[in-house]
């Protein structure tokens, strides 16, 4: 039951402000459903179509933010090429007109050899880890997707640590 939701941004601590509301919650719920369906379809073009032209995707795992819809599409296409059965099982979700926060169980199976350092994981190797997305929305598009996951756990499961 989503009873209340708020998202504050604090560019300077002590001066919180409410994020701009851009769409009614029903629109957000539709957007969440459609965006999740795009990921279930594993269609990078369709997924990217929900991101803003100048949106960002930031995997907080020693990776720089990916900026722009086309770069985001390429990133997701590459990810889906490596893990074609990539799947997300929702654990919990908070949503509002500002966007949503969702905790996932993320899993996937390697389709090709995956090198890391001096080791290489073989195709068929599988991982399942916890992940979390914090997503902001404006004008019906994703303006930022921040992803947090325990990639160390994935490397452990893939035999790469």
């Amino acid at each position, binding site marked *: 039951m989503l009873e209340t939701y708020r998202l504050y941004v604090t560019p300077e601590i002590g001066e919180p402000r409410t994020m701009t509301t851009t769409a009614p919650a029903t629109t957000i719920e539709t957007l969440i459903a459609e965006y999740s369906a795009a990921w279930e379809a594993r269609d990078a073009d369709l997924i990217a179509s929900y991101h803003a032209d100048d949106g960002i995707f930031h995997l907080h795992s*020693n990776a720089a933010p990916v900026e722009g819809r086309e770069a985001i599409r390429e990133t997701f296409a590459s990810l889906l090429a490596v893990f074609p059965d990539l799947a997300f099982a929702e654990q919990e979700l908070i949503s509002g007109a500002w966007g949503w926060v969702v*905790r996932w169980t993320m899993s996937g199976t390697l389709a090709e050899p995956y090198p890391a350092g001096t080791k290489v994981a073989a195709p068929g190797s599988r991982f399942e880890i916890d992940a979390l997305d*914090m997503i902001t929305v404006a004008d019906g598009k994703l303006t930022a997707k921040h992803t947090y996951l325990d990639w160390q756990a994935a490397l452990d499961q893939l035999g790469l640590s």
Partner: protein
Amino acid sequence: MSTATENGTATRTAAEWVQGFAEGWRAPTDADSFCDHFEPLLSDEMRLIQPQLPETVGRHAFREEFARPLFSLLHEIRGTVESWASRAEGDDEIVFIQLTIHAKLAGGRPVALHTIDKITLRGGVAVERLASLDPLELLGGIALSPRSWPTFLRARLAR
């Protein structure tokens, strides 16, 4: 604004709790002052859950098994709350806080950690903190900073 309960005790709202969280992470000087600041915000039995580390329970464990190893490994810790969101869940308030931490390892190598903490508030204090982060951000910095290895190994062996 605090919320009054039926017995007249004032409890913190989520916004107040997040403000206290932000103040605690802004520029902590050492483990003890950090814990002294946070203890009023935590339940006696708070569970602390984070990747690659054993779960801890209680304020004492927060001080001895989280804060002391953290401050022995990292210096000049500066944490910034980027954003937060919350919702009510029964008698609890669930709060997600996006936090960025900048610090230095022994030897001066800078590291940046990005986390989202899921905090469960009950009666205005945290009963659980579940951290979502990639330990590789820190481990990668440690690997490149040999002077931090002894401290890191001591912290790991102390668990």
